[in-house]
């Protein structure tokens, strides 16, 4: 795992975070639910909480879908290629490319999605929330913070690498009693990396 330079994190007095969606996107409840599932995965292993609010101007985290140049000097590039980006704490900006074909896959963990030329929205959301919390990219291929995601794939379960990184910044969730299941052979093969075998939570 890695961090942004200086290891920025949300300050102690701001651990109960709010998030809101750009009202111009007019997102459906179904899309918004994907993000609440993604936030819940990080909340499970940290003392952080995430609450959705309607006011886009007063929240801690701002989520929006944009095309091309959208004001931060990092223009999106159309289908595939760059999918999304997010800023280090305590900025809270989370931008996704609205020109992607986003798949709103159902509940559940890692797997495959039905359309190879599309991208699983929850997988990208879990990754970008890692950035919003202060994580950089990881070289452990099976980890959430690995920079690339194969189209047609769903990768939402936090691995040991992700959890170690985020708990280095915020500590553990006092109520978390999750066990780290031994990785299935395919997962183990995929996750083995320098920091040892990452396992999925």
């Amino acid at each position, binding site marked *: *795992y*890695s*961090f*942004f*330079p200086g290891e920025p994190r949300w300050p102690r007095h701001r651990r109960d975070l709010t998030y809101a969606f750009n009202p111009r996107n007019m997102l*459906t409840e*179904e*899309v918004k639910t994907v993000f609440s599932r993604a936030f819940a995965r990080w909340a499970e292993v940290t003392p952080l909480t995430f609450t959705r609010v309607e006011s886009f101007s007063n929240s801690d985290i701002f989520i929006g879908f944009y095309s091309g140049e959208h004001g931060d000097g*990092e223009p*999106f*590039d*159309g*289908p*595939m*290629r*760059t*999918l*999304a*980006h*997010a800023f280090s704490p305590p900025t809270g900006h989370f931008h996704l490319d609205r*020109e992607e*074909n*986003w*798949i*709103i*896959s*159902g509940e559940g963990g890692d797997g495959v*999605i*039905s*359309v*190879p*030329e*599309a*991208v699983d*929205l929850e997988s*990208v959301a879990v*990754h*970008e929330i890692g*950035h919003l919390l202060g994580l*950089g*990219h*990881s*070289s452990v*291929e099976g980890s959430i913070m690995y*920079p*690339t*995601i*194969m*189209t047609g794939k769903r990768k939402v379960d936090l691995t040991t690498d992700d959890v170690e990184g985020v708990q280095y910044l915020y500590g553990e969730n006092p109520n978390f009693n999750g066990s780290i299941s031994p990785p299935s052979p395919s997962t183990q093969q995929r996750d083995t*990396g*320098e*920091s040892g075998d990452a396992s999925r939570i």
Partner: protein
Amino acid sequence: GFYPNSSVVPPELIRNATGNLWNSFLNFTGCHAGNKYDGLYKLKQYFQHFGYIPETFSGNFTDDFDDILKNAVEMYQRNFRLNVTGVLDELTLKQVVIPRCGNPDVVNGTSTMHSGRRTYEVSFSGGGQRFHAVKR
């Protein structure tokens, strides 16, 4: 657009993944330092976007496979656990074209991804006994 997993994205809206610009990078398979290749400057722009070539090299890139690009390729291969050859081999370019997060892998010239088993030297100096711990 947003589509439920079980559905089929309307064919007219499927933007063919093979048609995206990055796939043209596969044409550089086998390219190596010392030569010049048409369009190689676009790959340099890609590596700069993700931090492998410092912003100080802004401006017009050439099509020369120079040391700037070779160093970027080697750091990329290290980060993605590929053979570090500095050559644009097939595995490297197949990794390059995969859709990804827009955040850079390298910040201020420091590659954070390959920190891998990064050690921290922590020393508690002060009145009491001097502790020196290494966190891996």
